[in-house]
């Protein structure tokens, strides 16, 4: 059989950062493609396009498409982001910081967390997150710059500026823009592929591949009626109210996520914008109570598509995975899916065997993000009915496996397509007071006195953490410049 020809043209549909990022990446990384973007109004539920806090992976995405830190930080009014302060997730415990990079350093070949677990009570050690350089920086309010391999950071975006940057960059690369609503998505009768999109003015647009970035409505992909995996029994929040306006310098490089009776609230700020909101369960708090928030609640149901890529249509971001913004994974998933789409681009026939591998990886990644978000609820310690209900549900099997192994001896199994590092898992587990029954027997190899010395040295070095000036950090973010 003659192989099918390469994909030559792509239509991206959507109205926000997700769509422009996908279009820019496709055009930049596969310049032979014709890329058209059909711009439609941004969906209210498109969280990837609306959250200002991002994970460290955003820098890799920028690097892949040739944007420098100068473009994205200086040029788009972003700032470095070190982590989140979690308040009130375990009532009797102090707030903890989930930041990125290492928590402590191994001693004598033994993981730091094992030694911390062994000794923290007896030796009255500071909490686990006090051994993370990034958390230390974030907490201290010192300027968020990098001076060490052990600190990783994301960005706080000013959404309008960042969206403009991405649009301008995509257009510069040669993406064409069509501002026109989509009337109809027509399928071919023979193979069920998308044939064309009919636009509001009656004209139609055709391409070999269609990329759906239209948010939870999934205007293109929903034509295929792909089954959905419903996550709502594990992640019961189904309402979100978003507020925010002027920038608030008080936040520095750390956002706040606070648990309350029926859900959680966030507050964050970039140099030119603040963002805050409430995520809650409508079964536990009625909208009219409105929880003291102004704004229209957005309804959503958490879950993911069974298959992200069907025939010649691939759904990205909230069109494929609907998850609450806790831990800011929405845009991260978009970036990861874009990278996977580019590096696994099939031929025009979209061979099922190739799509299956793409879908397997996307699904595994989304499920592990779900597990990590779910972890916060499973380990929460709060007396209210919402929290008791959330903690009472048996977690997904993969998370249950992790929790039981961790509970047994502080061990976390490796999973495919994991987004969050082991230290991130530990930050949440130990930050919320979930401790294993026993620890790794290998920890015996480090006598308590040696560990004590190592702990003290780590703390001392963090307290005097040497900070380079902000000017130093920019080239470090993108050491090789434009690829």
């Amino acid at each position, binding site marked *: 059989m003659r*192989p099918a020809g390469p*994909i030559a043209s792509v239509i991206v549909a959507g109205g926000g950062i997700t769509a422009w990022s996908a279009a820019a990446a496709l055009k930049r990384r596969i*310049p*032979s493609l014709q890329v058209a973007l059909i711009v439609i109004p941004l969906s209210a539920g498109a969280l990837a396009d609306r959250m200002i806090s991002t994970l460290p992976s955003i820098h890799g995405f920028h690097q892949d498409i040739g944007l420098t830190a100068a473009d994205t930080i200086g040029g788009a009014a972003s700032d470095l982001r070190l982590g989140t302060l979690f308040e009130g997730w375990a009532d009797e415990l102090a707030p903890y910081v989930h930041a990125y990079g290492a928590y402590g350093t191994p001693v004598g070949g033994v993981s730091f967390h094992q030694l911390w677990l062994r000794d923290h009570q007896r030796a009255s050690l500071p909490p686990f997150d006090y051994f993370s350089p990034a958390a230390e920086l974030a907490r201290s309010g010192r300027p968020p710059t990098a001076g060490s391999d052990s600190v990783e950071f994301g960005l706080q975006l000013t959404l309008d500026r960042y969206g403009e940057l991405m649009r301008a960059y995509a257009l510069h690369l040669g993406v064409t823009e069509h501002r026109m609503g989509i009337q109809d998505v027509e399928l071919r009768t023979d193979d069920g592929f998308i044939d064309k999109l009919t636009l509001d003015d009656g004209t139609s647009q055709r391409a070999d591949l269609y990329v759906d970035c239209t948010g939870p409505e999934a205007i293109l992909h929903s034509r295929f009626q792909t089954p959905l995996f419903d996550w709502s029994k594990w992640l019961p929040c189904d309402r979100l109210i978003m507020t925010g306006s002027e920038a608030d310098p008080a936040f520095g490089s750390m956002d706040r996520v606070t648990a309350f009776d029926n859900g959680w609230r966030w507050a964050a700020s970039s140099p030119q914008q603040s963002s805050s909101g409430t995520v809650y369960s409508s079964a536990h708090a009625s909208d009219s109570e409105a929880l003291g928030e102004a704004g229209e609640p957005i309804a959503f149901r958490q879950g993911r598509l069974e298959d992200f890529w069907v025939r010649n249509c691939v759904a990205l971001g909230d069109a494929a995975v609907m998850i609450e913004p806790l831990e800011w994974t929405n845009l991260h998933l978009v970036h990861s899916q874009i990278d996977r789409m580019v*590096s696994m*681009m099939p031929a025009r026939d979209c061979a099922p065997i*190739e799509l299956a591998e793409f879908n397997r990886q996307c699904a595994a990644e989304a499920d592990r993000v779900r597990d990590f978000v779910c972890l916060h609820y499973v380990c929460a310690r709060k007396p209210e009915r919402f929290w008791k209900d959330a903690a009472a549900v048996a977690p997904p099997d993969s998370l249950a496996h992790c929790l039981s192994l961790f509970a047994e001896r502080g061990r976390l199994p490796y999973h*495919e397509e994991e987004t969050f590092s082991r230290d991130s898992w530990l930050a949440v587990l130990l930050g919320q007071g979930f401790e294993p029954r026993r620890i790794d027997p290998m920890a015996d190899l480090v006598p308590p006195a040696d560990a004590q010395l190592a702990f003290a040295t780590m703390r001392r070095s963090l307290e005097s953490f040497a900070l380079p000036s902000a000017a130093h950090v920019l080239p470090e973010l993108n050491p090789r410049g434009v690829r």
Partner: protein
Amino acid sequence: MSDRSKLKVVVVGGGTAGWMTAAALVKLLPDRCDVHLVESEAIGIVGVGEATLPHIRAFNERLGIDEAEFMAATRATFKLGIEFRDWGRVGDGYIHPFGTFGRGNSEVEFHHYWTRLEREGAAAAPIGEFSMAVTMAYLNRFARPDPNPEKLESTFSYAYQFDATLFAPFLRQLAEQMGARRTEGRIVDVELDGEGGDIRALNLESGERIDGELFIDCSGFFSLLLGKTLEEPFEDWSQWLPCDRAVAMPCRTRTALTPYTSAIAMPAGWRWRIPLQHRTGNGYVYSSSFTSDDEAREALIGAAEGDPIAEPRVLKFQAGRRRRSWVRNCVGVGLASGFLEPLESTSIYLIQAAITALVELFPIDGISPLDRDEFNRLIDLEYDRIRDFLILHYHATERSDSPFWDHVRTMQVPDSLHEKMALFRSRGRVAKYREGVFLDASWIAVYIGQRVTPDGYDMRADLPSANVLRDAMSALQSEVRARASALPDHRDYIERYCPMAEAA
């Protein structure tokens, strides 16, 4: 924590698996266990796995073993990969390298560019010529990898080829120094706990009784505890891996000391050639359904180079594994838990994987079923992935010159492998997983080396113009050759670094 009572661990068997386990436990968990190894000198050791994978270096390092000392003691040579001859077709040859093709750091994997040139009819050189490990191997060169990732000399790894009958004694010395106890004797009875069914003690021919809390079965094919005593069922994989015999015969040679192991396809299986400092290991792995022991012996004698040092010896086995490796208070390590033919040098790797998992999940205050299940899950993953990789070697062939090759070429393979092959054929993609021993480059080497060629390639490989690509490829090929040629000769390197003591 010297006040804690130590777990009494009894290791049964003094071969490679037994002493690797004993040494690792006394070194890594000195305060947690007392290790007592029982072996019988009357029972020979199989000593499979003279060729290893790079992972062995991490094991040795963790045990604090000095490399040069270990290599001299086991008469070891370096190993950069495995050469496969006559697998895809008679006359074909390729090396599965411990290393990358190309520089290994480009956005698009190297083999996509290579496939593009092939498709365009540009007659690219064999893909091995773009691999440092392969080129060094064919030129008989060796040096340790350069830590600078920008350099071509950083793009390979290495393992060892050593005399397995000398490795166990080497480890024994180490383990005994660190406190392992050893008893010589034949086990005549295994005592079970009446109620729980756990193993309680071993009774030796001498009358001695050795009791323990955790028993490690390293008794080889015999599987005394896991198989014979606890009757854990054996999952038979011979439908996919029909070889069930090997005839082995070491020879004294004065030929080139190749820094690679060879696996040469034969009419009813394949033949290994493993060069050590003092001799060459030879053997023919075959299926008794397709050839007789006598025929196999003759074929081996006819093919092996050099003067035989010992009479040919026949081993019998069956591909597969015990359904679980850890049952009750008994952990099978090595051949006692399963067998996969040494085609990709995985025997010692599997021992190591079991030891690593055991140390991580070592019982604390009694055996937890959760830890045991996790151990079994980890070991299953290892076996299943290696199994598919081995079957690929047989199945990806065009040979039709013997009933054996007709059988393996046309047999049904596991669905998991079928999908992996289809995915590679479609666009050169390697099914992705990080758990499991063989990474992308290994699969690519075997696929391409055995004529499973992709119909398409990554479209980003189309970016450079044909001329630019051809020039870059030939520049890379020349650079690889020049860099490899500049490295020391393998034999010279060994003679300087780790020569064995002259035989008495």
